[in-house]
C-alpha cells in the first residue's frame, strides 16, 4: 500500500514538474514574441512619425517593455499552454505574411499597408488567444503540423507549377498566398485527423528537406545535359514526397499525447474544444 502511494506521489510530482515547465516555456515564448512585436512596432512608429532620437527611444522602449509584460500577463491570466502560445505566434506570423503577399499582388505595398501589417498581426494573434480562452488547446505537435503545412506548401506548389507549366509566374505573390493558405488548411485538416507529436512533425520536416535536396540534386545530375529544368524540379517534388513517406513510416504520426503537459482544467477544456465543429464553432 505504501509502495503504491510512493509510486503515485512520484508520478504526480513528475506531472506537476512537467506542467510547471510547460507554463514557463509558454511564458518565455509569449514574452519574447511580445517584446519583438513591441520593438518592431516602436522602431517602425518612430521612423514613420519622424521622431527624433530621444522620443523614439522612449516610444521603442515603451512598446518593447509593454509587449514583454503583456505577453507575460496574457500567459498568466489565461493559463496558456505552449500549444496555445505557438498557435498565437503562428497565426500572427502567417497573417502578416499573407497580408504582405496580398498587398504585393494588388500593388499596394506602402507605408499605410505596413502600418496595417502590425494591426493584422495583432488581430490574428488576438483571435487565436480568444480561441484559446474559449478552450481551444492544440498540442505543440498540432501547431507544428499546421505551420509545416503552411511552410512546405509554398515551395512544393511552386515546384509543381514550374514542372507542369501552370501559370507564367507573373502573379507570384498571389500564388504564394494561395499555396500558403492551402498548406495551412491541409495542416489544420491533418491535425484534426491525426495527433502527431512535435517530434514526429520534425521527422516529417527532416524527410521533406532531405528528400527534396536528394531529388533536386539527382535531377540536376540527370537534367543538366538536356537543358530541361523540369527534371530537377519534378525530382525535387518526388524526393520530398518520398522523404515524407519514409519519415512517416519510420516515426509514425500519432503520439501527440506524449508531448502534452496539461492541467486537469485545461484537459477538460480541450476535450470540449475538439468536439466543436472546425468552422461552425469558436474555431
Amino acid at each position: 500500500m505504501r509502495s503504491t502511494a510512493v509510486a503515485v506521489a512520484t508520478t504526480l510530482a513528475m506531472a506537476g514538474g512537467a506542467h510547471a515547465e510547460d507554463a514557463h516555456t509558454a511564458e518565455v515564448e509569449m514574452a519574447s514574441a511580445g517584446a519583438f512585436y513591441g520593438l518592431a512596432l516602436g522602431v517602425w512608429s518612430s521612423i514613420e512619425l519622424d521622431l527624433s532620437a530621444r522620443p523614439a527611444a522612449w516610444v521603442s522602449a515603451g512598446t518593447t517593455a509593454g509587449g514583454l509584460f503583456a505577453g507575460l500577463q496574457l500567459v498568466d491570466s489565461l493559463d496558456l499552454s505552449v500549444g496555445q502560445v505557438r498557435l498565437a505566434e503562428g497565426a500572427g506570423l502567417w497573417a502578416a505574411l499573407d497580408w504582405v503577399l496580398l498587398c504585393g499582388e494588388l500593388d499596394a505595398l506602402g507605408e499605410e499597408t505596413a502600418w496595417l501589417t502590425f494591426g493584422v498581426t495583432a488581430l490574428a494573434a488576438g483571435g487565436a488567444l480568444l480561441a484559446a480562452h474559449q478552450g481551444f488547446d492544440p498540442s505543440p505537435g498540432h501547431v507544428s503540423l499546421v505551420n509545416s503545412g503552411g511552410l512546405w506548401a509554398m515551395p512544393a506548389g511552386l515546384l509543381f507549377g514550374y514542372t507542369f507549366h501552370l501559370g507564367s509566374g507573373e502573379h507570384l505573390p498571389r500564388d504564394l498566398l494561395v499555396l500558403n493558405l492551402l498548406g495551412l488548411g491541409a495542416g489544420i485538416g491533418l491535425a484534426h485527423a491525426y495527433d502527431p507529436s512535435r517530434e514526429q512533425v520534425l521527422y516529417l520536416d527532416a524527410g521533406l528537406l532531405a528528400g527534396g535536396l536528394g531529388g533536386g540534386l539527382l535531377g540536376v545530375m540527370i537534367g543538366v545535359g538536356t537543358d530541361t529544368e523540369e527534371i530537377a524540379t519534378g525530382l525535387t517534388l518526388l524526393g520530398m514526397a518520398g522523404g515524407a513517406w519514409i519519415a512517416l513510416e519510420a516515426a509514425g504520426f500519432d503520439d501527440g499525447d506524449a508531448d502534452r503537459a496539461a492541467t486537469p482544467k485545461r484537459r477538460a477544456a480541450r476535450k470540449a474544444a475538439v468536439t466543436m465543429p472546425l468552422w461552425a464553432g469558436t474555431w
Partner: protein
Amino acid sequence: MVRSLALLLCLAAPAAAAPAKAGRAEALIFTTAFGFYEGIALSWLLDEHDLLPSGDAGVAAGAGLTLLTTGLTLGAGWWVTEEYGVNEAQARIVNSSLIWALLNGTMLTSGYGGDGEDALWASLVSGWSGQALGILLAANVDRTPGQVGLMNTVATWSGAETAVVLGAFHADQSGPYLTWPALVADAGLLAGSWIASRVIISDSRARMLDLGALAGGLAGPAALFMLWGPEEHLQSWYLGAVAVGIPAGIATAWYLTRDWDDGEAPEVSSRALMVPLAGGLF
C-alpha cells in the same frame, strides 16, 4: 499487496532497452543541412583548382558530390541515432558544437584576413571538428536541455559583451577585432559547461536568461538616449550601457525566475549513449 508490489517494480525497473530518440529529428535536420553545405563547398573548392570538368559535366559532378555528402551524412546520422539513440540534450550538444565551431572558423579566418577559399576550408574543418567534438561530448557527458541552454547562454553573451566592451574602448575594428569575441565565447562555453554541471536548470529558465540579456542590452542604451539624445561623442557611453545592460538583464532574469526550478523533477537525460566512446568506435 501483490498488485502494488508489481506496480512499484514496474516503476522501479530500469528503462527498456530501446534507446531514447527524442532528439533524433533535430539532429538529422542539422546533419542533412551540413552535409549539403559540405558538398557545395567541396565542389566550389574543387572547381577553383580545376579538379572538376568544365561546363555541364562539372555541374553534374558537383551535384553528384553534394548528393553523396548529403546522403552519407544523413545515412551516418540515421544509423548512429538508430543504433545508440539520441535524446534532446545530446542532439543540442552536437548541434551547438557544430554551430560554435563554424562561427569560430569563420571569425578567426576573417580576423586574419583570409580569402573566400580560406573561409570555406575553415568552415569545413571547423564543422567537422565541431561535430566530432559534439558527438564525443554527447556520448560521455549527461546533461539536460536546460544545462545545454545555460552553456550556450553564457557563451553567447560573454562573446557579445566582449565585442561591445572592445567597441566602447575604441578598439581597432578591423582585422582580428572579431577574434577576441570568438575566443571569449569559447572560454564562455567552457565556463558555461562548468556552471551547468553544478546547477539543475530548466530549458525555459535558460531561455528567459537570454531574453533578459537581450532586453538589458537594449534597455541600457535606450535609457541613455532618453536622457541625453543622440550625441556622437557619447558613442562609447552607449556601448558601455549595452555592456552594463547585458549582465544586468541576465541577473534580473535570474532573480525573477529564481523559483522556476523549485520542486520540479530534474530533467536528467536518460543517458542514451550516442556513440560508446569506451567501445572503441571513436
